[in-house]
């Protein structure tokens, strides 16, 4: 390390706050609120809770635009996770969260603890996690760094989820140059709870005890939220590795079962996980939500290292810890259950009515902050957005402009973002829990059986940063519609949305503009779909000296369906008819092909939401009726890619003609074959079943049939003609590209 660590020295020195990420103005504001300068403990606590990661100081004002209410919402933003009613007294809790910067610095532990953190958010609600999904972004898979990151992240996700016994049922992986140095690791957890047993995170009851349980508190992850999560990454970041937390899924597995027993025994007043900013954040937010005060004695915290300073204990981000408020008469039972599950526990403090967060060490006060100042006192900033006039990202050519349609089709299938991710999904346990109807990679959405409520849920996660970079508003609408479309093809109706907004430095006008427009788009799409946003996460400062990442809002959606037995699979059969349904109006703008041609630019065509929504509803009902063999939405790589993926899944080809599309739209032959955009569905099944979908106010055309061993698609003067096995070889080619030099890795 070239500079002195702010955590070991420098307190009392005027500039310590800067090293901790606070501006001079923010420091002055703290002094003003306190009527004095903060001491070391207090400054450390402020620096974390006033960080971007905890205070959302650049995004909070914008997030107010999102629709958060709906008849099925049980818990909305502000709780550890959102929750929607699923019937019969049960709720589904879910949330997505990022662990981008830790994964950039140490991919295995960064990803593992990202999974561990999102699991605890759902556990803290009183829910049992039943599924995980991941949305990952890396640079192009031709660099050693990408290989290193992919390997570590995929293993880290598998390590934690598999060991916990929570199935990883879905997700997506995109490879784009702007993520090369700053990968994205967003993890989503879905859980189930009896609605009347769910707990809130608000402290209550003066005199109630505060119990810390789980792993011992050590020095790992100190300052992670402020140092890693709230600043840009730069060259010397390997030196930040000590601020990455270390995950122990075995501890968390015990913690999960312990929490379930504590809740079943009605032993807890409230429960909160310890994540970013550790005890400071958990205890502070509990007290804030409950309008109470709280005393914490760091001398009572079970430690991994005996000589830890009070500030270290207060900001440690050691994983696998939970904080509970317990009535005094129930403390013994709580501690006994912790002992049963072989997890450390201790009473470390008390709920007070003081409105103050008091830190003691063996009874002596070492810090005292008004809860309001700490939790809600951080200034919120207005962004200064300015729309960039040009395309600000690079273009690279990976396919020649004179390539023929069949070669293009194969190149698109082999494109890292399109190609099969089975090699990654197979490293995850996707079936533990006995709920998984559709495993990762089998359908556009994963389907989980919920016998408690006599139905199933479908979950999907989506976000195409490239398209959002082209047009943040339209691109984010598309990401949200894509999620709903993924649910529709398994017959599910959206219940609620979670999101993770991954952007660059919001203090830069271009990024500020992207963020604002993306939130506007998310709000508009969610309102149109009547899908409330019940929780989420913002990850800013995702940029390096090479520039910002693509703006990447990742949308997670949970929906319900009545009968998992009627879910359409991906296996069409010889002789099935194929239909293209929906207002799909293909364009190369922002498409996978345009990327490969090195011709990306600003702007996406504007598409209305309402007709897409109508198509989504029609497809959903058709799938629910059980008459559809296969349904998929048209996504990356356009109609040809969608058809090829269905052909590969079943081993049977198809012969189609897109003439009806060309007649209806003003698109070119190439647009019809490879263009992208919202609102397109490919359905296959008996002709008589498909024809029922015509004449219902949604564009519908039969485009061909399932036959032979070739994928043949005609569009005007262009014709794609490839063998299914050629297509499959291209589609399965990514694993070799990713793993080619695994053996030689020295990182």
């Amino acid at each position: 390390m070239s500079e002195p660590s702010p955590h070991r020295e420098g307190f009392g020195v005027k500039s310590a706050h800067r090293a901790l990420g606070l501006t001079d103005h923010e420091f002055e504001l703290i002094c003003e609120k306190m009527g004095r300068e903060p001491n070391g403990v207090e400054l450390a606590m402020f620096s974390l809770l006033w960080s971007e990661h905890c205070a959302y100081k650049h995004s909070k004002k914008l997030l107010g635009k999102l629709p958060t209410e709906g008849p099925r919402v049980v818990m909305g933003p502000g709780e550890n996770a959102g929750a929607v009613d699923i019937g019969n007294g049960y709720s589904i809790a879910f949330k997505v969260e990022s662990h981008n910067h830790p994964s950039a610095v140490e991919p295995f532990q960064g990803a593992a603890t990202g999974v561990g953190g999102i699991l605890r958010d759902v556990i803290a609600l009183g829910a049992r996690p039943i599924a995980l999904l991941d949305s990952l972004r890396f640079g192009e898979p031709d660099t050693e760094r990408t290989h290193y990151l992919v390997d570590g992240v995929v293993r880290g996700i598998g390590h934690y989820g598999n060991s916990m016994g929570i199935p990883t049922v879905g997700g997506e992986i995109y490879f784009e140059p702007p993520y090369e140095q700053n990968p994205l690791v967003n993890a989503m957890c879905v859980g189930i709870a009896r609605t009347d047993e769910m707990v809130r995170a608000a402290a209550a009851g003066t005199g109630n005890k505060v119990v810390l349980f789980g792993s011992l508190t050590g020095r790992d992850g100190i300052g992670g939220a402020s140092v890693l999560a709230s600043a840009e990454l730069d060259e010397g970041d390997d030196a930040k590795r000590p601020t990455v937390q270390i995950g122990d899924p075995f501890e968390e597995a015990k913690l999960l079962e312990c929490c379930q027993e504590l809740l079943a025994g009605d032993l807890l007043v409230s429960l909160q996980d310890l994540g970013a900013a550790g005890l400071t954040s958990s205890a502070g937010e509990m007290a804030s939500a409950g309008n109470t005060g709280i005393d914490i004695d760091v001398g009572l915290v079970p430690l991994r290292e005996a000589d830890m300073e009070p500030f270290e204990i207060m900001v440690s981000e050691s994983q696998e810890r939970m904080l509970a408020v317990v009535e005094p008469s129930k403390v013994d039972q709580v501690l006994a259950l912790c002992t049963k599950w072989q997890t450390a526990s201790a009473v470390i403090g008390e709920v007070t009515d003081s409105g103050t967060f008091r830190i003691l060490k063996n009874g002596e006060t070492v810090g005292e902050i008004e809860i309001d100042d700490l939790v809600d006192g951080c200034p919120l900033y207005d962004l200064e957005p300015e729309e960039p006039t040009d395309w600000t990202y690079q273009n690279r050519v990976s396919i020649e402009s004179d390539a023929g349609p069949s070669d293009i089709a194969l190149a698109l299938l082999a494109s890292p973002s399109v190609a099969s991710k089975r090699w990654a999904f197979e490293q995850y346990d996707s079936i533990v829990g006995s709920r998984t109807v559709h495993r990762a990679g089998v359908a556009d959405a994963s389907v989980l059986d919920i016998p408690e409520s006599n139905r199933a849920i479908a979950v999907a996660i989506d976000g195409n940063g490239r398209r959002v970079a082209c047009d943040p508003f339209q691109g984010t609408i598309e990401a949200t519609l894509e999620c709903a479309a993924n649910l529709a093809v398994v017959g599910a109706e959206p219940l609620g949305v979670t999101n993770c907004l991954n952007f660059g430095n919001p203090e830069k006008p271009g990024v500020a503009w992207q963020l604002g427009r993306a939130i506007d788009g998310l709000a508009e799409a969610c309102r149109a779909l009547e899908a409330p946003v019940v929780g989420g996460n913002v990850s800013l400062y995702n940029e390096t000296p090479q520039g910002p990442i693509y703006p990447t809002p990742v949308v997670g959606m949970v929906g319900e369906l009545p009968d998992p037995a009627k879910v359409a699979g991906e296996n069409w059969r010889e002789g099935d008819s194929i239909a293209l349904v929906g207002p799909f109006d293909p364009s190369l703008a922002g498409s996978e092909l345009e990327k490969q041609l090195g011709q990306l630019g600003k702007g996406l065509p504007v598409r209305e939401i309402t007709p897409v929504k109508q198509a989504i509803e029609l497809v959903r009902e058709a799938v629910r009726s059980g008459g559809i063999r296969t349904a998929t939405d048209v996504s990356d790589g356009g109609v040809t890619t969608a058809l090829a993926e269905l052909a590969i899944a079943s081993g049977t080809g198809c012969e189609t003609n897109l003439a009806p599309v060309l007649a209806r739209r003003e698109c070119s032959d190439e647009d019809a074959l490879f263009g992208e955009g919202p609102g397109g569905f490919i359905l296959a099944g008996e002709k008589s079943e498909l024809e029922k979908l015509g004449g219902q106010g949604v564009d519908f055309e039969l485009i061909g049939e399932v036959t032979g061993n070739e994928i043949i698609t005609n569009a005007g003067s262009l014709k794609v003609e490839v063998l299914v096995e050629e297509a499959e070889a291209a589609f399965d080619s990514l694993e070799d590209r990713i793993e080619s030099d695994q053996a030689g890795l020295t990182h």
Partner: protein
Amino acid sequence: MTWGVLQFPGSCDERDALNACQIAGGGGPDQARLVWHEETDLSGLDGIVVPGGFSYGDYLRAGAIARFSPAMTAVADFAAAGGPVLGICNGFQVLCESGLLPGALLTNERTRFICRQGDLVVGEADSPFLTGLEADQTISIPFKHQSGRFFAPPELLDRIESNNQVAFRYAPGHNPNGSVNDIAGVTNEAGNVLGLMPHPEHAVEAFSGSTDGLAIFQGPALTATGGAA
């Protein structure tokens, strides 16, 4: 038939195993219960499942710590008295570590965790768990593990083979981990203890794509009533 499903800290598939036992028995919650790792009284139980997961985090070595639990001492007595014991995945590892089954499970050849549906061929072993299955029959059962490569030194392997203790082999092309002789599951010499890496408890409901695992859970009851497939 009442099953006991062991639960260690870090077990993952114990509820799935309970579910499978209940379905195999025709439904009803009284057909299986969890057995906490500290319990030593197995009276009233007709069969034991040592389930999958990561007991004790797989720290030290998969199954190496769980074998010392009080419940495993009781399971050893239960097995010695001829009671049917089924070890699945981590349970197989625990049974090998306990010496109740021969051989060891090593890290997969490719070192990665792998989860996939695969085909198994039923072996010649004489075991109550195989009563409902025919030798050479192919069944579809998912597997998911990182340390599933069955290994036995040559002499022991010869004995396992010549005693007909191989209960399941991976079908040609389906060996995911480099197991010697494609062995996916073995029994003890008496046949009443079976361990296998694939997960029959995840192949008992139609929506999962296969119900081939049910026969394994139904086997002991069939045997007890003198039935045959």
